[in-house]
């Protein structure tokens, strides 16, 4: 168990180092930070001083190391566009993105998994066929279009729900939350649905196909031959075996939610990190891009780690003497 966790942690660190390298390359070589920061009027002397201050005269690996050390302390420099510390900018926007992602992920899982189980177990009912067709429409609907259509219907035509922003937020220490005010909650509804819909249909289709796969296995046939109750077969044997791949891919989907938050936040002008990121890409604000990349990578690595641990909890073949388990690939 401990060896397993350590191995996974090491892998996580390696991934972070690799992403850190990409972020650093971005930081150090994409665009010319010195000329961007200096603006129009400068002397050669101030230029030299800035180069020394930024450590740009040091060897590559020293610079990379310094970058990592700074990053680990949350120092990412100053945004070119907004002339404020990148860390402050991201921290201000982190709660908005995380609250939105949390709501969307909960919605996607709470609706997607039961629908997948239902359509997997009852493949030939008309409800299943309907859900499956609707889900294909869902996969074909780009996130931004869902947002636009929801705004058109619920904000423009019906005027029920706000079309942009977070509403009133309450500060809890450095964290700002929209969960505690009526306007904050109302403002969450459309963006959460927008962000959840695509993932929901993916999760539903995934759970369904895994369920069908498991229901075809010999051990399910044998469980039927043993005369077990349908409930025990479907929800005990089949669902548990479906969980193993579903956990893995759902983990990836949650990462997808954080990434697609960029799109949703742009549509709803949601004051989150994704909105900040897309503005940075448009205006070549490299420090923000690099920091965002590292932060997102950190979330992904964290999610993957949790997924691995869950996987480990569900599948006994990983827990006990891996050698004897034989080739169980995934």
């Amino acid at each position, binding site marked *: 168990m401990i060896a397993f966790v350590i191995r996974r942690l090491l892998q996580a660190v390696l*991934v972070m180092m*690799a992403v850190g390298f990409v972020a650093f390359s*971005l930081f150090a070589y*994409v*665009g010319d930070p010195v000329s961007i920061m200096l603006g129009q009027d400068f002397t050669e002397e101030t230029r030299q001083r800035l180069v020394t201050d930024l450590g740009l005269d040091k060897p590559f690996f020293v610079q990379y190391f310094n970058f990592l050390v700074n990053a680990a302390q949350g120092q990412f420099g100053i945004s070119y566009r907004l002339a404020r510390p990148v860390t402050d900018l991201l921290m201000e926007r982190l709660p908005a993105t995380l609250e939105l992602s949390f709501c969307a992920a909960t919605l996607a899982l709470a609706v997607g998994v039961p629908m997948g189980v239902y359509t997997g177990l009852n493949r030939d009912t008309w409800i299943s066929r309907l859900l499956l067709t609707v889900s*294909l*429409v869902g*996969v*074909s*609907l*780009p*996130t*931004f*279009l869902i947002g*636009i*259509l929801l*705004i*058109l219907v619920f904000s*423009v035509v019906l005027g029920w729900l706000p*079309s942009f922003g977070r509403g009133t937020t309450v500060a809890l220490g450095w964290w700002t939350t929209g969960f505690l005010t009526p306007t904050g909650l109302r403002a969450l509804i459309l963006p959460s649905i927008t962000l959840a819909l695509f993932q929901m249909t993916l999760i539903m289709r995934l759970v369904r196909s895994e369920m*069908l796969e498991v229901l*075809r296995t010999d051990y399910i046939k044998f469980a039927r031959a043993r005369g077990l109750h349908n409930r025990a077969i479907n929800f005990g044997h089949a669902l548990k075996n479906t969980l193993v791949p579903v956990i893995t891919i759902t983990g*990836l989907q949650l*990462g*997808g939610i954080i*990434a*697609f938050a*960029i*799109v949703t936040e*742009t*549509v709803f002008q949601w004051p989150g990190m994704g909105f900040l990121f*897309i503005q940075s*890409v*448009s205006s*070549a604000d*490299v420090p923000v*891009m690099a920091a965002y*990349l590292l932060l*997102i*990578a950190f979330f*992904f690595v964290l999610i*993957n780690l949790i997924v691995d641990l869950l996987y480990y909890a569900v599948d006994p073949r990983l827990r006990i003497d891996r050698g004897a388990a034989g080739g169980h690939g995934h």
Partner: protein
Amino acid sequence: MDVLRRALDSDIYYSFRRSPVVVVSAIVTVLFFAGAIFAPLISPQNPFDLRQLNLMDASLPPAWMPDGLPQYPLGTDTQGRDVFSTILFGSRISLLVGILSVVFAMVLGIGLGLLAGYLGGTVDAVIMRIADVQLSFPAILIALLIDGVARIVIPRELHHEIAIYVLILAIGFSGWVQYARTVRGSCMVEKSKEYVQAARVIGRHPVAIMLQHVLPNVLGPVLVIATIHLALAIITEATLSFLGVGVPPTQPSLGTLIRIGNNFLFSGEWWITVVPGLALVIMVLAVNLLGDWLRDALNPKLR
């Protein structure tokens, strides 16, 4: 003739014929392709030729609504451009970017997959590790990043000209992993078979003989991946263009049209954004339905 008869008698054609949804999807897809290819010939107006635009006709609703004019079946935008024509030209860009990025991803993925599967060892480990890491990041983020970097590195004037190709590379690069995995898997299976060893003995290059055997084996799965990937690539392009980091506004794709139209959502001109949006969804849905059907048809055990 015999080939045609065999094709018409095959299980795949049978399952195609039996599903009206699939037939309709195929027709819709073909119509979109035809519309995109022949856009300059069939569109009533060249929306990028300013002389053809009439500002008097700006912001007209679709023809079936009051105030709509029959020569603008889907209405006009705020500059008097015929929405139907902009959609035809927009699909042209969307499909072009989609198809070329799928081709790029396919070539890259198949190449790396063959390399990994054939050489094994360190090369395999490195390629598949990169694939794993990349797979844990959503494709859109990778495309966004590549596009963002290119935007900074390439001078602005030049970037406008090559933006489409940058986009194709960015979207293509974000999608190679699935092809590589499929091809690698098949390659590993084939490699252990005796004919590859035998080929070595008789002096034929094993790579040549493997290509001969691996490619036909992966044709089906690759085709399925490519179809579904096409739908995804079109969506990714539209999303990037919607975010304003995709194709330049001088060559608007469907995503750009939706982005522009989105500004007029609140002033009541909903058709400027909704109609291109519907066109996009119908196109992607048709391709997705085809991909879904193809997967089931080529994989009989799923039925």
